[in-house]
Every structure is written in C-alpha cells, then in structure tokens.
C-alpha cells in the first residue's frame, strides 16, 4: 500500500504536468497564429503582389524548381551543341595566338535557297540565336556575309583548355587535353549532332513554358531549314499560347510565315504585333536587340514581297531610325520597296 501511494501521487503529478505542457503548447500555437495574422499586412511590403497574371502564375517554389531545371537543361543544350567541348570568349590577342581554334558564334551565311519568298541571299537578315547560332544546316538566316557585320554575333570564342604552347602545366595539360573533350587529332572541332538538342527544347519548354528563347531557338532547329516548317510553327504557336506578350515569338512566327509559308498577311500580322510588343521602358538584352532588328527587317521584306512598296519603305525608314544604318533595310529603301527582279 505504501508503495502504491507515492505512485498515485506521481501519476497525478505527471498528468498535471502533461496538462500544463499541452496548455503551453496550445498557447504557443495560438501565439504563432496571432503573429502570422498580424504579420499579414507586412506581406505586401516584404513580398509584393505579382504585377500580372503571368507573374502570379510563375510564383512559388515549384515553379522556381522547374525554371532552374529548365535553365540547367538550356546550358546542357549548349554543351551538346559543342560535343561537350568547353569554350569561353577570347581575350584580346587570343584571336591571333589561338587562330587554329578560334571560332565565332554567328550565322554561317548559308543561304536557304528556295526558302520562301526571299531566295535572294543578299536580302534576308541574319537570324543569329544566342548560343545556338553556329549551325549552318539549321539556321534559316539567309544573310549575306556582308550583312553579318551589322547584326551577327561577332564575339570570338576559344576553348577553355589552353593549347600546349600556352600551357604551363606540361604533362598535366597534355593529359587534360586527352581526357576531356577537346580538338581532334587534326586540330579541328568534333562534329556536332544538333538533332540531339531537339528533345532538350521540348523538355525545357515543358518544364518552363515561359522560356521564350527555348521556343524561338527550338522552332528554328525543329524546322531544319524549312524542311519541317510545320513542326517549327506548331512549336512557336504553343509558345505564343503561353507567352502572348513575347515579341520574340511573334518575330519568329512572322519569319516562318514569310520564309517558309509565303503567307504574307499572317507574316505581317505577327511582325506588326512584334513591333508593338518590343520592350521600350527598359534596357534590352543583346538577343532582344537582334530580334528587334529582325522584326523590322522581316516586316519590310514581307511588304516588299507582298507588293506593297510604300509600306515596305515606311517600315524600312522607321527601322533605320530605330536601329541606325542597316544593310537590309537600306536595300529595301534603295529599291523603293520593290522586290529584286
């Protein structure tokens, strides 16, 4: 009995202390709720509401993760295009010292003969794509070489791994040149399989439907120089659905309708919309500047092919005002908006 009594006291005490614990926990939870409730007005200051429906849709950790994955795949796509060889922008003087490996990311100048109305290679503006513009067979740009100086990406690129003559590392450098993707034995870059990138664009846009560049560049690769223009157009229209305010996608749609479909009204509609959507109240990225220039060029060429010379000249003039001197637009003005015979 004596043994039982202290135990009973203990049990009573422990149940009381448990009750007190629960009460404390409840008070803490209520306090947290109260804090959260009172902090709500702070939310607008700490985390401003999304400016648009698109931004609101993109909000949240899930989207951040998808965007991050999409961006990683975008970088991976770049590596795939270069057969895994790492490269960087050339430093001053390296164009001479590394002349064997230096290369540019610009249009190849390959005229897409018969690619729509603009079969004359001297007229079409180049259509460089940041990071993906070095594929001769897959760029629809029909710019002549003389026009590259106006709008091609002129930066020279060299490989990250230095050549033996510039490498202080001796045998370690030799080993690295052998075990990492590098120039082939004859000193040329390994050939690239750009078809391997097609699924990447699909995956990137699936992960992040607002990755405009992936839609634009992906459509360009998918169409394979106009051979599968419908695939490219379908991809671009999908991009348009998710990004109705993207001038880049509108420009590319105009380009596709003009060059591959010869559907001038559709091309003009998209290109006019592209010019309306160009961001004017912030600094534009280099890739946006390129596409802005393209929008003017394609629209001028569309009107020219559509036999609307006055409109072609008007667009070319406003383009020259916006861009400065431009070879393609100057040609349009020179011919008074009439197509080349």
């Amino acid at each position, binding site marked *: 009995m004596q043994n039982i009594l202290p135990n009973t006291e203990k049990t009573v005490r422990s149940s009381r202390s448990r009750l007190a614990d629960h009460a404390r926990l409840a008070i803490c939870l209520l306090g947290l709720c109260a804090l959260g409730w009172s902090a709500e007005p702070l939310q607008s200051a700490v985390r401003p509401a999304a400016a648009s429906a698109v931004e609101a849709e993109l909000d949240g950790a899930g989207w951040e993760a998808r965007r991050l994955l999409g961006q990683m795949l975008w970088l*991976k796509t770049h590596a*795939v295009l270069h*057969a*895994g060889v790492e490269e960087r922008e050339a430093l001053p003087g390296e164009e001479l010292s590394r002349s064997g490996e230096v290369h540019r990311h610009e249009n190849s100048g390959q005229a897409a003969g018969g690619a729509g109305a603009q079969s004359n290679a001297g007229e079409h503006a180049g259509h460089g794509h940041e990071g993906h513009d070095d594929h001769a067979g897959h760029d629809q740009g029909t710019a002549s070489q003389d026009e590259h100086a106006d709008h091609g990406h002129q930066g020279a690129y060299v490989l990250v791994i*230095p050549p033996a003559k510039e490498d*202080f*590392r001796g*045998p*370690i450098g030799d*080993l*690295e040149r*052998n*075990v*990492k*993707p590098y120039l082939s034995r004859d000193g040329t870059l*390994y050939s690239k*399989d750009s*078809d*391997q990138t*097609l*699924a*990447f664009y*699909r*995956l990137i846009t699936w992960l992040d439907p607002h990755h405009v560049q992936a839609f634009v560049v992906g459509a360009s690769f998918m169409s394979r120089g106009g051979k599968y223009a419908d695939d490219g157009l379908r991809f671009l229209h999908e991009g348009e659905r998710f990004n109705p305010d993207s001038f880049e996608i509108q420009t590319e749609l105009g380009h596709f309708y003009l060059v591959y479909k010869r559907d001038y009204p559709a091309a003009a509609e998209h290109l006019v919309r592209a010019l309306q959507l160009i961001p004017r109240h912030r600094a534009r990225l280099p890739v946006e500047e390129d596409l802005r220039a393209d929008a003017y060029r394609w629209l001028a060429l569309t009107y020219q092919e559509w036999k609307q010379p006055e409109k072609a000249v008007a667009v070319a003039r406003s383009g020259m005002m916006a861009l400065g001197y431009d070879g393609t637009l100057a040609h349009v003005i020179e011919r008074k908006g009439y197509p080349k015979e």
Partner: protein
Amino acid sequence: MNERIVHIGVLTWSALVETVRRKDLYVVWMLSIFSLGAGAVLASTGVRGIETFLRDVTLTIINFLSTAVCIWLAARQMPEELSRRTLFPLLARPVRRFDVLLGKFLAVWLLSSGALLVLAGTGWLALLLFKAAIGPIFWQYLLLRALSFGPIAAMTMALSLVLSGPATVVLSGLLTLFGSMFARTLAQTIRGSDALAQAPLKLLYFVLPHLDLFDLSQKAAYNYPPVDAWVVGVLSLYALAYVTVFLGLGEIRFRRMAV
C-alpha cells in the same frame, strides 16, 4: 617478404569480410535498382533523341555514387578499429603498421571498384535498353575511374587518422568533388599573375592531386573515340604516386599515435 604479403592479404580479406558483413554495400544495390527504375520511367515517357543527355546523366550518377561509397568506406576503416579497440589485438601481433594501412586500403579499393562495377553495369544495361549505348571508351572510363579510387581512398584514410569521421568524409568529399574547380581557378590565377606570385601558386598546383584527370565521363557521354594507351599508363603511375604519398603520410601519423 612472403610473410608480409600474407599479412597484407589476410588484413585485406578480413576488412572485406567485415564490410560485407556490415551490409554497407546494400546501399549500392538499392541505388542501382532505383536508378534503373528512374531510367525506365523516363524511357516510358517516350522522350527520344536525348541519348547524349542520358549518357551524361548516367555517368554523372555513377561517378558521384561510386566516389561517395569509396570515401565512406575509407573514412570508417581506421576510426572504427580504434573506437572498438580491435586494433590493439591486431597490433599485438607481428604486423607492421604500414601493412595494416595497406591491407585496409586494398580492401577499400577492391570494394569501391566492385561497387563501381555494379553501378556501371546497371547504367550500361539501362543505356543499352534506351538505345544509348556507349562505345569502347566506356571500358577506359571504368578503368580510370577505378584507378582514381586509389588516391581518393589513400587520402581519405590518411585524413581519418587526423580528423574525426564526419570531418574526414566532408573534407574528402569537398577535395574530391571540388578539387577540379579549385585547380582550374588556380591555373587561371597563375596565368594572370606576375612571375613572383607564380612560383608558389605553381607549386601548389602541381602538389594537388588532379583527380578530374581520371574522369572520362564527358568524352564517354559524347561517344568520343578511346584515348591513347599512353594516357592510361601515365595516369596509372600518377595514381600510384599519390597512393604512395598518402599512405606514407598516413603511416607517419599512425606510427605516432599512442595505440
């Protein structure tokens, strides 16, 4: 000499048996099955034309997991013997301390290479199923990967005699995974610095083990042709040199320990 070889062999075997008994490597089988499952799900989605990507991801996973297994196994060999006091009866026998280290090192190297073979076998099978098989460079990739476990295991075991277990794992992991990034940054710094600063930086650069030289995964992912035989030969010597250095350093520390 023969007696020493027998000692080392027995120590290696006992370390192997002990690790297998502890079922550490079950993690590798589980991860392999998980990877195969994940690959099958990806294949069932019908994504085509990403053979390079699949190869790249597979080899990256193999690299990461096999290195983690190697570091984990190497980091626990000596500290466990010390904490369980099983080292005392071992050292009471006529066995050299270096032989104990070498026996443990060989066991770790063999187990890590075995784990690599399991992981790589699973990966190879999966890639074959997805029609993304890797060419003959795959075998060179495996060989160099196995060679890289030499310096990694020796370095980790040497560190485990100085640091605590978790600290050894973290430091070895950082040195292994970020060593190449550090070496590249160092090389760029050397190229941009003056002659006076170059000397110590170059010394540091050449002293550091360049474990990324054992990684052929990028070339394998893009199906490059195999590398020349001399490259594999030189890298074998390079690995052996670092194994000798790290085990030597480990032995110096082990001899000074009051065990």
